């Protein structure tokens, strides 16, 4: 009976959030002003559990998550599960006397994973994840009027990953990432005056490419018994040469003259390395620190030739994060445990040198903190909630804006137990 009630409640809550989310996607989708540069904002983590840990989780050997940060973690999957992630963010930016605010709501990703072989600890996963968010909105004014620019889209990936444990202490994993996406800018040039029509322009860059992601996790107590509870993990994503197509859609006043101009070219998305060290204390507490680095110096969304100079508005990026987590009580042990004792609690903090170089010699730094809850359901499913607050500060605030951001994330996890028949039949 408890399972029946939980499923209904779970559905009800999930439905409220999802419907609310989708209703907002109709309104607007935009984000940080820095998303006008390059591929936009790099998505550090889409799963709300990882988001609540400030993107920390490269060394997370946990069977209750499809870990997107390190494919080696797939070997720890204990059951079949399906994740859907929703994200909301709000940016408030300041540059001198000018202030603006944007918000957006998006699907954060879809993932499905399962343990294929218990003997070999072979875990596999498949899914769709956003890699970058290139969403922003601004207005440029001149003597003729204002032009509204809206950038949309970003780079995404469809992935297929697998991991094994050749020894009990070592996990190895790999993932094939099929990169794809559109980064488009829509401009509406409004001209002041009577009997004047706006001009609508659209330029989009369609990207596609492949990259591999490889990772490992190692329990350090296999090396030294004194290091019990410590795990080291790392992952590396290769760089990807992208096939990039530039499309300019011209929508003149005379509708019969609508046309699309297409140019084929090249894009480049850089490699990324992530290293994590995690420790576990007692049954329920774990801490982890991560370092990641990605050099966007040679990245470009589109160039006509392979040897074209790199985008000067991008540069190296690195990220440091730290997290503390109290794990949720396993379902089988949760009877009689209070709600607050049962749920998982997460805290995280991060510092990041963003890849943006809005002007020569100007860098942008990001400092953020996060918090989250993991609410387990008797059915084995779960809802993870994350909240992030942070600030992006340029080294020269007279040139580039300060951006205060707030993010919410929600991940609904449906496990294999969801599919257990509700009623026992006479044959059972």
């Amino acid at each position, binding site marked *: 009976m408890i399972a029946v009630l939980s499923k209904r409640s779970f559905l009800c*809550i999930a439905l409220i959030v999802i419907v609310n989310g989708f209703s907002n996607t109709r309104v607007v989708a935009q984000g940080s002003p820095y998303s006008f540069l390059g591929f936009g904002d790099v998505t550090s983590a889409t799963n709300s559990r990882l988001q609540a840990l400030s993107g920390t989780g490269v060394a997370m050997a946990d069977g209750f998550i499809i870990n997107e940060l390190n494919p080696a973690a797939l070997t720890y999957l204990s059951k079949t599960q399906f994740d859907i992630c929703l994200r909301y963010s709000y940016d408030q930016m300041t540059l001198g006397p*000018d202030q603006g*605010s944007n918000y957006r709501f998006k699907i954060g990703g879809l993932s499905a994973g399962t343990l294929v072989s218990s003997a070999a600890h072979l875990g596999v996963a498949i899914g769709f994840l956003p890699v970058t968010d290139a969403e922003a909105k601004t207005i440029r004014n001149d003597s003729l009027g204002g032009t509204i620019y809206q950038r949309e889209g970003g780079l995404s990936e469809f992935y297929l990953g697998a991991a094994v444990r050749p020894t009990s202490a070592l996990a190895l994993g790999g993932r094939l990432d099929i990169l794809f996406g559109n980064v488009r800018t829509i401009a509406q040039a409004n001209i002041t*005056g009577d*009997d004047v029509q706006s001009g609508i322009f659209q330029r989009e860059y369609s990207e596609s490419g492949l990259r591999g992601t490889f990772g490992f996790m190692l329990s350090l107590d296999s090396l030294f018994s004194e290091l019990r509870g410590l795990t080291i993990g790392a992952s590396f994503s290769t760089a990807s040469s992208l096939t990039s197509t530039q499309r300019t859609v011209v929508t003149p006043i005379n509708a019969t003259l609508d046309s699309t101009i297409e140019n084929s070219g090249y894009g480049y998305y850089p490699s990324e390395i992530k290293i994590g060290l995690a420790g576990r204390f007692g049954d329920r507490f774990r801490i982890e620190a991560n370092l990641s680095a990605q050099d966007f110096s040679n990245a470009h969304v589109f160039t006509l030739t392979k040897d074209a100079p790199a985008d000067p508005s991008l540069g190296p990026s690195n990220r440091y994060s730290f997290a503390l987590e109290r794990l949720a009580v396993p379902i089988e042990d949760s009877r009689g445990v209070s709600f607050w004792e049962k749920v998982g609690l997460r805290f995280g903090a991060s510092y990041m040198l963003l890849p943006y170089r809005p002007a020569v010699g100007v860098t942008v730094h990001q400092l953020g903190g996060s918090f989250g809850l993991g*609410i387990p359901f008797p059915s084995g499913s779960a809802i993870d909630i994350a909240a992030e607050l942070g600030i992006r500060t340029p080294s020269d605030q007279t040139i580039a804006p300060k951006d205060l951001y707030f993010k919410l994330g929600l991940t609904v996890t449906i496990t294999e137990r969801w599919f257990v028949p509700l009623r026992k039949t006479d044959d059972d």
Partner: protein
Amino acid sequence: MFTSDVNFKRPHHLSFAALIALAAALLITSCKENISTIGSPFLQDSVFRGANTFSDSANIRLYAVLKQTVSAEGIAYNVNYSSPYLFLGNAPSENMSAWIGMKIPFIPDSTGTIVDDSLVISLDSSYFYGTNPGAALIEFDVYTCDHFSDSTASLTMADLSAVPVAHFSQTIVKDSQQVLVMRLDTSKIISALRTASLSLILVPTNNMTAIRGFASLENGSASLSPYIKLTISSTSGNYFTSRAPQYDFHLLADKSTLAQGEFGLRGSRALRERIVINTKQIRTQLGLTPFVTINSAQLEFVSDPIEHTSSLLPVDTSIPALVYRDSLTADSIQAIIPGSSRSATDVNTLIYQIRGDIEYAVRNGLDSIVFELQNGYAARTFGTTYIIVEDYNVDRWAFYDQHAADPTKRPKLLLTYSYLK
């Protein structure tokens, strides 16, 4: 195992989770958007916008055109063919005179002996053109002509019979609806009625100092159309029969002059102004790509109100039309831009929005596009061909041209455009 031993008490954590969900929903929906200029310096795909005014002869050239026939589907029509009005009279202040011509149908011998005939025309009650509203005298002579055709563009007294076959004189004040009947000199036209070449030409005398309107064959009401009333002798006595003209129209002799630096438009005179816009020059000068969006292209003309004259009651469109013609075949009409507007700040400024034509020319790489400014117009469909029938009113518009002493009054093109860099 999941059956009826049910405890429906809602667990506390569910209420909490629902509360969080609702709080998040409220938070999300309460956030407001405020678009700012922040981020605009980072744009890599930006729109360039420009505004330019062209008035010099390198970009716009104007030519006076006089064209009194319209060609549609291979048939030449007189300028006021299909006009519902026929104009007759004089406007001495403008040195202008309007005549009416009617082609009389062939009357065969089988019709019988014609013993008497009259011309009947119907006065339009309200139309009146002239500087003196009290000039109510309608006085004219009726002549015959044997070489009058549907493409006749001009006539002189030398083309007409030496003496008139009828004379009419009557004072009829404006706003009077009246049918004018004049008895023709049968002895002078009896033989011509049996031929196919007889036409009647109505010529106003100098005593008629206004132009009055009469119903034509195309006036829309058969009872108002002009006709010849014949009295036929037969063995059983005389009887009456009537014949409508084959076609009719009026001709206008306009000898008025305008000041230097101005050009005039007169519909019935087919006096037009041709405007050639050098789109190649504009494209080169502004560095425009074929994919530019023309947000606005206003062609402006400033009229001289002193030289503008019009009837007390316009018979049709009172503002000149702009006609777009193909630059290669200048006689093929591509579009009509009747939707001019008067400037809000100056009622004497007429503005034509031609952004679609400029955009088309730039996109297709045309060297130039050609427009014609016409005084009034009437759109007609002949078969599948949509044409402008030349204007049939005698109103005059005078505009400053490119040689006007005041540069601000010269015709100009105000162009606003944008394109993605």
